[in-house]
Every structure is written in structure tokens, then in C-alpha cells.
């Protein structure tokens, strides 16, 4: 492969190509930030109360009178919560995929969502669906417990990717069965509440809930960004990563814990919003490649934009009925998945 003539040109060409790639990726990242912002604005300007964009923006600044109060109290929480949830689920998904070196991995496949679902169902069964705090707390606790169980299983076997995946699948089946059992034993009223928890909803979010979710979703972000080199190396194989100085077990365990925290914090209030943790990283990869310096922030922004977009579509498709957000993200996610399957010529990444 030793170039004969034009060697300098090829060398320069190679480096120039790389630099062009990096600037393209940075541009894509900026574009995604713009998309996310646009989604926020779109979500703010749409609603049943017929309040236009101008008023809505006024309301952000504190004005707008009565309508402004409605925007601040009923529309803005949706937007903020939707953004947080999308960010958290997408970044958790990206991390899980890198750590398990599996393109189909997500915190959901690790059983976290099943654990959270079981916790919510348990809370509804014991305390009633209207006790928001109990349901969310129970959901979070069970999700955390699930993560612990999966990690303990993995620890006993050396924190290999395959062990984590299998452990997650086993846990997922366990909690699904337990959830079904509780649903079977519950009263009709409780069953209604349980079913709708699984559909997902941004309507229940108030500022307290948003604060709690933010505490779970935002602090892990800088930690994950610090680990982007480690995540890059993990994709090259455990051996290579360890050789380059990555503490593989620690990154794996820590990554799962952070991903679990972000996921649990996101869904314990809003219910199951699926596909974001799976689809956002893949979409981001198509735009910015697999370098986690770009991929992590890109998938976060994209996840937020997707959730907000799905929410707006759910609210405007069939007013005043709302298509639950969990259903909306699944409906949008499945065709994308088919497209991904049919399009991919090389591997699954």
C-alpha cells in the first residue's frame, strides 16, 4: 500500500479528509442542538388553550397574564420533562450499547424498565394510582434493585458483556411475570391505572417531579462525557481497552449504574417511554459516527427532540384526544428500525 507518486498528496488528503470529517460532525452536532431547540419551541407553541408562540415566549419571561400562567403551569413542565426524559433515556441507551458492545442493548433490555414497571404496579396495588409519590418512589426503588441484581450477577462472572445481557433478559422476564401477576390480582380500577402507567404520559409532571428527574438525569452527564475515550476503547474489545489503560470492570459497572439511574429517574414519573434508548443512539450514529465525544451529546439532543416531537404529534394528531407518548414513540420507532435493518450493509453499527 506504499504510495509511489503523489505520496504527499495522499497523506495530505488523508489528514484533510479526517479534519473535514471532524468539522462535519461538529456541524451536525450544532444542527442537532438547533433541532432540539426547535422541538422545544414547537412544543411550547402547540396546545389546546390556543395560545400562540408569541404569548408563549412572553410567558417564559414571566409575563402574559392568565394565559402566561397557563403556559408556565401546564405547558412548560411538559416541555422540560420531555426534554429531560429524552436526554436521559438516549444517553443511557448510548452508554449501555457501548458497554455491552451490542447495538440492540438499552436500559430496557437490561431489565431496568421491567423493574421500574413492576415497582409502579406494586405501588398502585398497595397505595392506589393517585398517590403519585408512592408509585414513583416504588418504581425508582425497584429499578435500582434490578440494576443491583444484574450487576451482582455480572460481578460473580467477571462483568463480561454477555453475562450482563443474559442477566438482564432473565430479570426482564421475572419482573414481567410478577407484573402480570399483580395485574391479575388487582381490582378493575387499579388495572386501569397500571395499564395507563405503561402507556407513558407527560401530563403528570409538575415542577417537583421535574426537579427530582433532573437530579437523576443531569449529574451523570459530565461523568459519562469524561468516559467517552473509555467507551470508544470498549468498542475495540476488552483486551484492547484494558491494554490502553481502561479499568474495564469499573467502567462497565459504573456505566450500568449511571444508565440505570438516568433511566429510572426518567421513567418513574412518566411511565414507560420506549424506543428512545434504542433508536436515538442509532440515529445519532448515522449523523455523527461512533466517536463518543460526539455521539453522547448528539444522542442526548436527538432523544430530547424525539420525545418532544412525539409529544406534539400525540397531542395534535387527534385533538383533543392524546395518543399516549409511549405508544407514539413505539409507532415512530418501529418503521425506523425496519429501515435500519434493510439499509445496513455492514454489521449492525
Amino acid at each position, binding site marked *: *500500500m506504499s504510495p509511489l507518486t503523489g505520496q504527499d498528496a495522499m497523506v495530505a488528503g*488523508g489528514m484533510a479528509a479526517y479534519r473535514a470529517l471532524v468539522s462535519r460532525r461538529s456541524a451536525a452536532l450544532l444542527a442537532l442542538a438547533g433541532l432540539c431547540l426547535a422541538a422545544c419551541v414547537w412544543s411550547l407553541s402547540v396546545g389546546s388553550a390556543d395560545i400562540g408562540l408569541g404569548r408563549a415566549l412572553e410567558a417564559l419571561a414571566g409575563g402574559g397574564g392568565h394565559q402566561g400562567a397557563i403556559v408556565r403551569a401546564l405547558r412548560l413542565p411538559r416541555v422540560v420533562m420531555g426534554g429531560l426524559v429524552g436526554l436521559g433515556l438516549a444517553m443511557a441507551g448510548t452508554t449501555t450499547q457501548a458497554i455491552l458492545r451490542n447495538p440492540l442493548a438499552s436500559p430496557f433490555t437490561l431489565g431496568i424498565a421491567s423493574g421500574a414497571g413492576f415497582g409502579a404496579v406494586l405501588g398502585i396495588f398497595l397505595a392506589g394510582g393517585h398517590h403519585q409519590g408512592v408509585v414513583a418512589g416504588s418504581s425508582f426503588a425497584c429499578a435500582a434493585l434490578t440494576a443491583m441484581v444484574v450487576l451482582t450477577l455480572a460481578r460473580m462472572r467477571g462483568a463480561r458483556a454477555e453475562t450482563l445481557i443474559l442477566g438482564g433478559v432473565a430479570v426482564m422476564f421475572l419482573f414481567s411475570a410478577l407484573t402480570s401477576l399483580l395485574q391479575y390480582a388487582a381490582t378493575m380500577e387499579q388495572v386501569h391505572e397500571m395499564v395507563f402507567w405503561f402507556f407513558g404520559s407527560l401530563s403528570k409532571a409538575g415542577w417537583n417531579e421535574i426537579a427530582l428527574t433532573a437530579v437523576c438525569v443531569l449529574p451523570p452527564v459530565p461523568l459519562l462525557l469524561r468516559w467517552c475515550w473509555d467507551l*470508544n476503547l470498549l468498542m475495540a*474489545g476488552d483486551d484492547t481497552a484494558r491494554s490502553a*489503560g481502561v479499568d474495564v470492570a469499573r467502567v462497565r459497572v459504573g456505566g450500568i449504574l449511571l444508565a440505570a439511574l438516568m433511566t429510572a429517574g426518567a421513567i418513574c414519573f412518566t411511565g414507560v417511554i420506549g424506543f428512545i434508548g434504542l433508536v436515538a443512539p442509532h440515529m445519532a450514529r448515522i449523523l455523527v459516527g*461512533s466517536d463518543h465525544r460526539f455521539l453522547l451529546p448528539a444522542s442526548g439532543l436527538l432523544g430530547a427532540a424525539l420525545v418532544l416531537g412525539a409529544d406534539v404529534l400525540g397531542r395534535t394528531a387527534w385533538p383533543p384526544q392524546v395518543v399516549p407518548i409511549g405508544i407514539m414513540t413505539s409507532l415512530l420507532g418501529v418503521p425506523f428500525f425496519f429501515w435500519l435493518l434493510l439499509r445496513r450493509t455492514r454489521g449492525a453499527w
Partner: protein
Amino acid sequence: MSLLADGLSCRACGRDILNGVSLEVRPGQVVSVVGPNGAGKTTLLRCMQGMVRPSAGSVAVGGRDVLRMRPRELARHLAYVPQAGPGTMALTVFDLVLAGRRPHLGWRPSPRDLEAVEAILDDFGLTALAARDVDVLSGGQRQKVFLARAFVQEPRYLLLDEPTSSLDLRHQLEVMELLRRQAAARGVGALVAIHDLNLARRYADRAVLLHCGEVVAGGEPAHVMTPEAIRAVYGVEVECVPVNGGSAVFALRPVSEGEREEHMEESTCDGLH
């Protein structure tokens, strides 16, 4: 400051893969480990890297036990290149090699890091591929990328497992040349598990012959890889032909079981890695 393995023994799946292996790699020295399939070469390298816990013995670099060192610190001393990487990987060549700078990286790659990567890519002739994803490269190109990653890590010692197995003739020579140059210029030592006996004889300062997990011979390559030793360990009849001031090994034919047993002290070991 040498890399020292002392009485290494390693058990896996109820078998002794390594049995009392001791060797030393000095700075700037290229040591090749040769032996048939299943001799324990890969396990030896993994033990040296600290990835596999030996059942007995120890590995030390610069007097310090590798098992006690933190990964980041160990990475400044040792770099390991496995035999094969995972099948798919969507990082660009530049990014993967840059990731090899991890022990030296701060929050952002410094200009020095970027220069080092560019220099290595140039050395390996990979610059034109800098923006390509690793998983679209050929096996040989991919192997070079992994090697480049290890080189750019600037360790004291390189542990390479079959670094030339997928390379064509030209690249085999190039890589071994690079290894020698690094060793000479920067005093980087290398422990290289290699199949090609001629490459081992040509580029290594010392050789270690491994058979059934034990060191059968060690020293100057020409003295280690004698026709008698090769017949005993590999079961192949070879002839040494003089070439260009040195000598090369030419394989004639496999030896029958009967002939072999005359020359061997122990029975053949199973080819389990």
C-alpha cells in the same frame, strides 16, 4: 527496568496451560516467543499483561508487580495487541489510534497527542485511511491500525500476539522493521508471539521456544530454533539454508509419529489454548 516473568504457571479448565515459565525482556530488546498451536503463547502474553491471574509466579515491570498496578499506570508501561479484534467497529482509523493515547490524554487531546498519531499513521502508511471506519478495512489494514494504536500509547514494552498473521509479505516486513526501529530509537522492548520462524530469527534479539506450556529453549534465535528443536517441538523436518549472511529455515516435511517420539521426552500435548 526490564519486564520479568518469574515461574509463571497458569491453570484453566483444569489444565496447566503454563508451567513455570520464566523470561526477561530488557529495554530495547525484541524477544520472540515461538511454539506450535496450543503451546500457551497467548496465555503467556495475557499473563504478562496482567489480564489473567497466574496460579503461581509473578510478572513485574521495573520491579513492580503488574497485578498491583492501576490500569492507567500499567498502560504507560505495557501495551498489548490481541490476535484478533471484534468484528465490527465503527470508529475511524484516526479515532481508534488516538484512543491509544488514553494514558496520556487529559480532557482534550493535546497537540502533542495529535502529532504523535499523525506520525504513527505515517509510519504505518495508514494516513490515506485516516477518515475511514475501521470495519470497512481489510484484515491486514485492521491489524496495522491496532498495532498503531499500541505504538502510539508509548509504552515501555509491547506485547504482540501474532502481529503479522494477516499481513502480506511486504507489510510483514514493514511492521517488523518498525518494531525494530521503535526498539532502537526509543528503547521500547517487545515480546512478540509469532508463527513465522524466519521473521522471528531475523528480527528478534532473543527467542523463547514454548512447548506444552514450558520453556524448552531460550537465547539467540539461531541457537533456539535449531532443526533438532523444531523437529522435537513442531514435528517438522527442516533445513537451515544460508541466506544473505544469515540463515533461513526451510520446512521439508512433517515427521511421522514414530520418528518424533524418539526425540521427545514427553507426549504431545493437546492443542488447547
